[in-house]
């Protein structure tokens, strides 16, 4: 996933190497081992290979499913990379009409479940939809059918680009003005400075965001089935529901793990051998270039276009359906549902961030080693469809309930019901497993940019590891941490499959309400809870924007960009090293 070290080992004083396993590495190993259980459960399904199902798939469709999946993942990767990075650069480096609003609002598509956007898209653009009907009746053209693969790729790009946008935006902000100004003073145009300085330096963040989007595309079932596009994830459910063979389905899901592994390796190689240390001396924020007149309006129109397609259109479509059907309806208990959703999402975001921090930090302290392997392993869970991983959690938890807790209860003469199965603990555990990759990617991308010399300085001044983390790293990690919190919060808030399966009896969340209606094609009834997810998602999004703005506020003193490559492999930025 990343380079093993932010600091070359030879730069480290010998005392730095934590010789006995430190508290950090023990904690990281324990956390990772727990989080690995559901993924291992998926892999262990291979112990009893369902030979006939595999043979059938091999003969009929496996190749097609793999090609479809790879095509989709590649398209979504390219789409989110370009769209997310471009938008992030525009809002950070330029000033144009409506910039401040766009900077926050461009995150919003993340708050709508992908399949809802997909359905709204279909509703608008399909043959029987208002647009095609209007064109047919007034102009007389019959629009060509859009291949389902194209539709899915466009929708997923629009839903998942915020990952790249959020991470890239944070990276560009962190670079500060001096980075750009230095490049400019060396005669680079703003555009060239972007390609030669800002972009390469933001590479860990951009690549991390893109790989998250690609893993989402791997795991997605709702959107592909809405469009009738066949992918591996869709194949998993086809075997599960259609052949009543959950074990064979789980085995098929292990293929997704392979792709995820491939992605993570690709990400690592894309980060390259370069190290992305960035001096953390505070400098002024990026000076925005004003885009006036037509150019400013064009950029604003571009942002509005993206937002219109990815957010306004689905929201408007939902509202229209609801209004046509007698207005927005909320069920009784709506407030409790809203509260459940917010509390679960908040807790999951915090828990995930803390655990991801421990893992990322343990990896910084003892790079290489087991920590690297386990964090990589645990991150793969993100590429599994939610209900596959949920079953991977359900089965071991039920086992503990029956075999351990149940027996203990019998020993003391008090038979127990299920304690873990269907408990909040189990549900939160599922969220952490599912979204750890998000939190970890975001934190790790920020952490690698902090030079190891800071660690050394703090240590030489007598600070313990905990103190160093608290007083040196955490303040510098602020934007990465906030990004992690926001994404996991919003993701949890719209999570459906794992919640559906693992939630405690009587607990309902907003996405469950959406699903209960959409599964019966009652789309007009789904509008109220779906819009509530969006509305509730606004709070953390704007809060995070405000908080990061503050931390990227006026800074003092020059900032020095440095990027060191392995000796003998000078990067394009070598010229700017130590410009003082």
């Amino acid at each position: 996933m990343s380079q093993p070290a932010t600091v070359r080992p030879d730069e480290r004083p010998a005392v730095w190497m934590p010789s006995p396993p430190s508290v950090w590495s023990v904690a990281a190993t324990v956390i990772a081992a727990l989080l690995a259980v559901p993924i291992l459960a998926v892999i262990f399904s291979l112990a009893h290979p369902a030979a006939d199902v595999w043979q059938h798939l091999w003969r009929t469709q496996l190749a097609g499913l793999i090609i479809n999946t790879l095509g989709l993942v590649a398209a979504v990767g390219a789409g989110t990379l370009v769209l997310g990075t471009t938008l992030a650069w525009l809002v950070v480096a330029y000033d144009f009409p409506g910039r401040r609003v766009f900077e926050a609002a461009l995150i919003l598509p993340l708050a709508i479940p992908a399949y809802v956007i997909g359905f709204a898209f279909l509703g608008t653009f399909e043959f029987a939809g208002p647009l095609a009907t209007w064109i047919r009746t007034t102009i007389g053209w019959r629009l060509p059918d859009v291949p389902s693969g194209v539709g899915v790729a466009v929708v997923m790009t629009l839903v998942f680009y915020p990952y790249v946008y959020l991470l890239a935006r944070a990276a560009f902000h962190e670079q500060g003005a001096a980075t750009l100004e230095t490049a400019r003073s060396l005669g680079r145009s703003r555009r060239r400075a972007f390609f030669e300085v800002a972009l390469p330096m933001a590479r860990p963040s951009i690549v991390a965001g893109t790989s998250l989007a690609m893993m989402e595309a791997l795991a997605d079932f709702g959107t592909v089935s809405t469009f009738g596009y066949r992918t591996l994830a869709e194949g998993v459910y086809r075997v599960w529901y259609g052949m009543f063979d959950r074990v064979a389905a789980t085995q098929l899901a292990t293929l997704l793990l392979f792709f995820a592994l491939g992605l993570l390796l690709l990400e690592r190689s894309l980060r390259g051998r370069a190290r992305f240390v960035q001096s953390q001396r505070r400098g002024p924020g990026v000076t925005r270039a004003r885009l006036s007149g037509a150019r400013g309006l064009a950029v604003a129109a571009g942002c509005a276009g993206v937002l219109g397609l990815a957010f306004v259109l689905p929201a408007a479509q939902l509202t229209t359906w609801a209004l046509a059907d007698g207005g927005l309806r909320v069920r009784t208990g709506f407030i409790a549902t809203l509260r459940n959703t917010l509390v679960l999402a908040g807790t999951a975001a915090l828990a995930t961030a803390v655990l991801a921090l421990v893992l990322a930090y343990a990896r910084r302290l003892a790079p290489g080693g087991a920590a690297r392997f386990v964090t990589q392993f645990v991150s793969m869970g993100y590429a599994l469809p939610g209900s596959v991983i949920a079953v991977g959690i359900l089965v071991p938890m039920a086992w503990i309930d029956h075999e351990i807790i149940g027996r203990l209860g019998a020993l003391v003469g008090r038979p127990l019901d299920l304690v873990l199965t269907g408990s909040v603990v189990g549900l939160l555990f599922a969220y952490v497993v599912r979204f750890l990759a998000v939190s970890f990617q975001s934190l790790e991308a920020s952490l690698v940019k902090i030079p190891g010399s800071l660690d050394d300085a703090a240590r030489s001044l007598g600070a313990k590891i905990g103190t160093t983390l608290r007083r040196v790293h955490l303040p510098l990690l602020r934007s990465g941490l906030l990004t992690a919190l926001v994404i996991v919060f919003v993701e949890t808030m719209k999570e459906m499959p794992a919640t559906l399966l693992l939630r405690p009896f009587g607990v309902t969340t907003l996405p469950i309400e959406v699903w209960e209606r959409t599964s019966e094609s009652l789309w007009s009834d789904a509008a109220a809870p779906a819009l509530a997810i969006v509305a509730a998602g606004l709070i953390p999004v704007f809060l995070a924007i405000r908080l990061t703005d503050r931390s990227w506020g006026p800074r003092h003193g020059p900032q020095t960009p440095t990027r060191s490559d392995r000796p003998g492999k000078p990067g394009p930025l070598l010229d700017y090293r130590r410009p003082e």
Partner: protein
Amino acid sequence: MRPLPTLPAIAAAMLLVVVGPAAGQAPAGEVVVYSARHYGQEAAFEAFTKKTGIRVNIFNGNTGELFERLKAEGDKTPADVLLTVDAGNLWNAARAGLLSRVDSPELQANVPASLRDPESRWFGLTVRARTIVYAKDRVKPTELSTYEALGDPKWKGRLCLRTSGYIYNQSLLATLIRRHGEPRVEEVVRGWVANQPTLINSDTKIIEAVAAGQCDVGLVNHYYLARLVAKTPAYPVAIHWANQQTTGTHVNVSGAGVTAHAKHRANAIKFLEYLSSPEAQQLFADVSFEYPANPQASVNPLVAKWGKYKADDINVAAAGELQAAATRLADRVGYR
């Protein structure tokens, strides 16, 4: 990892024993329902509570996932009743031992034999017909006859189908396989595929596509058309009862069974008996446009206007037994 220290482990276990909910304390007068059906039953549930004083607690989910949860919970499950759609799903739950036999003369009398498990582990409660719909202005009803005939080249480019992964299509194919055998059905589905059907993953959208002229005929569950006609009486799409001269129109059920480890078994049986009674069946039919399983209840007037039809009287359990075969058949002939 070091093994957990013994003392803290014991302490933790004690704590769990003390704070954990004890078994057998569930309040009387309750029935817990795991439900994969989320529409149209509320009125019947409320009426049941009013009549008996027994509270109905519902836990909604997808069939596949509810099934896993029920299985994982084993003998500790809180669920008394599993309510789901599609006979294949009910068959699968029974096969996995999740449902228990219920010998109730009332249920036997209320639910026709073809709509319930021959071994009395589940009972169909509502009936849905999966049949042909067509554009009134472009198709004459006389052009239509059977599911099989939709493979006729005259429908090339005029057919809208749901993807084969959709459970109601799988059940339709499964019952056709029971009637005709795999080779014949494979030929039929090859015919459908050769007609290059537009695949749309929503019954409602299929009907809308027929209305808008994207295709001329489609294959859907009848109540989706009923919902649209209820909103727009002059809707330009009509229903055709398939296979009237031959095997009868394919019907499927939503239904329920009592779980193998029900804590409130007596209540659960009472609940199923009530749901199959004419009174509850009427409530189902009024709201959801489905056909009541109990012939003593009357059909929703809007649906009744479509006339009586001959339903395929093959036991709907066939859908489960042959569903995997149906899925594989679809894969083989390239029906996505």
